[in-house]
């Protein structure tokens, strides 16, 4: 009997290890959390350890452009950041591989209704560290036609890139802000098929990857990203290469410019 119990216990433990991780309790208490876990993190170890900060307004003033900042700077060796809005019809907002950049990304997204916004950062040990916030919003952010559709001029500027790099005195990273002209149609507005930027790669002048952003439909019209690349003294420019889901290419070169900072004080007063 005792042997049987021990065998059963051993089997149980073994199975437990094989089944691996279960979704941990969700501090945001989202009704969709288990589904989100199954869909995006099945079998993975997810921890809510307060190491990933997600900053967004508690109440969105504009449900078509809710500003979100994700900062996983408290974690070493972040491989990837994934951002999810549970109650959106399309939940995955974007993912980011900060290859030679701070694990930091700021962007705007569209919410169809009030929703948890969560970001998970993958560290080298295979653990996903998750943080999040609930954002209240009026309805319809994902199903409202983009402003571009009220202005026939937009097509002539499609894929136009605006951008600038700021050096941050006393910090190893610079700040890169980018805007791409694109309607970012979700496919959920009547009669307007999905049409959105899928991918933006940032490389240095030798072609080495600095970061890769995988963009999904909920990112707001004219995607505006803020990233913090770790530039080297030899870097005189960064190269942006991307495309949308129709194969339109996005190409730009952002000069690095003079290494002077306007940002040191402001950056410190702000993010945390």
């Amino acid at each position, binding site marked *: 009997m005792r042997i049987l119990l021990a065998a059963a216990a051993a089997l149980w433990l073994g199975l437990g290890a094989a089944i691996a991780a279960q979704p941990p309790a969700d501090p945001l208490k989202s009704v969709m959390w288990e589904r989100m876990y199954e869909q995006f993190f099945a079998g993975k170890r997810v921890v809510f350890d307060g190491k990933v900060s997600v900053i967004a307004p508690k109440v969105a003033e504009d449900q078509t452009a809710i500003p979100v900042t994700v900062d996983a700077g408290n974690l070493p060796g972040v491989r990837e950041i994934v951002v999810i809005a549970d109650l959106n019809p399309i939940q995955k907002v974007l993912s980011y591989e900060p290859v030679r950049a701070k694990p930091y990304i*700021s962007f705007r997204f569209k919410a169809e209704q009030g929703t948890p916004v969560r970001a998970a950062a993958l560290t080298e040990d295979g653990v996903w560290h998750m943080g999040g916030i609930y954002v209240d919003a009026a309805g319809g952010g994902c199903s409202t036609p983009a402003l571009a559709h009220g202005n026939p001029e937009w097509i002539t500027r499609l894929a136009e890139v*605006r951008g600038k790099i700021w050096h941050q005195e006393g910090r190893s990273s610079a700040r890169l802000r980018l805007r791409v002209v694109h309607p970012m149609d979700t496919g959920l507005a009547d009669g307007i098929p999905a049409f959105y930027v899928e991918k933006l790669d940032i490389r240095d002048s030798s072609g080495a990857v600095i970061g890769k952003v995988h963009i999904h439909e909920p990112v707001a019209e004219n995607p505006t990203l*803020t990233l913090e690349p770790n530039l080297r003294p030899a870097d005189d420019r960064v190269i942006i290469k991307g495309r949308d889901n129709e194969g339109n290419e996005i190409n*730009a*070169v952002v000069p690095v410019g003079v290494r002077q900072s306007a940002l040191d004080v402001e950056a410190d007063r702000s993010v945390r």
Partner: protein
Amino acid sequence: MTARKPTIVGGARGLRRALPLGHWPVQWPLDLDRRSFLGQSAALVGAALLPAEALAAPLHYDLKAVQIAPDTYAVYGTREYFSRANGGNIVNVAFVVTDDGVVVIDTGSSLLYGQTLKALVEATAKRPVARVYLTHHHPDHIFGSQAFDPATVATLPKVIANMKADGEMFAENMYRLVGDWMRGTELVAPGKALEESSERFGSHEFELIRMAGHTSSDLVILDKTTGVLFAGDIAFLDRAPTTPHADLDLWHKSLNQLENSSFTMLMPGHGPAEKGKRAVEQTNDYLNWLERTLKDAVHEGLTMNEAMAAPIPERLRGVALARDELGRSVAHLYAKYEEPFLPVVGDHS
């Protein structure tokens, strides 16, 4: 993509469709639990009244008319943002009692507010309402007009166009923000599009001044008989200005025009009526600071969330909701300031 059509209906849109306006999904006879909870006394109220009104604490706007000048009364709203606690009573309304009837300026945020206001006006003035002016199309100013005879409701043609464009969205958002206070509220188009530059009621002549900046069309009204200027939301006082449809350059022009005009007292859309021009000066000051703050933030490479955290200067700390309205203004205006500042890069031609 078609496979990913949304399965979730919700938000204010879904809720509003689920609850027909003006009705509550409680059927007579009430179910047993509610009947026993209410007891005999509630049953005596009568079948006609009984659905929901008898169950929930009745919503009631506590409106008071404060005389600010001869024949002239203010009905002050709280210096807050919309909430379920204040029912949207965040706006100033005014009325002027004339021999030809009462002239009302703005109408509050809901049908119930409008009904309460109409009763207050008629009880105070002891005569009917002859004219209702709407200063601009924002929800806290227009939705109470539903309680008045549409033929008496007047505003500028562009305000009417703005109401038609944004009214439904405003109604949905208001249901979300203040809930049941909005019951029965619907957009009603004003009966009169103002073409004239003034109107006379009794001994009061109202100059109708076309301005813009807070929205694309703002009606400012000067009662030439008393010298009271009803500035609508062109001027705020001790309450931060709001910018969802603002053009700051046009707004400054309008304020400068007020700075150079003469009036005895200014009634702002939000905040106290005062003699003098403090509301004009403070609104100008706040908007200058706001614009400087947004431009600096863009220049420094800040994100919207960082710009929202900018410090409020000492002199504006007494302005209610400055922090909240900075956050809202960043949402409204930041992209507009970024656009010209971020240079076009790359090989797009």
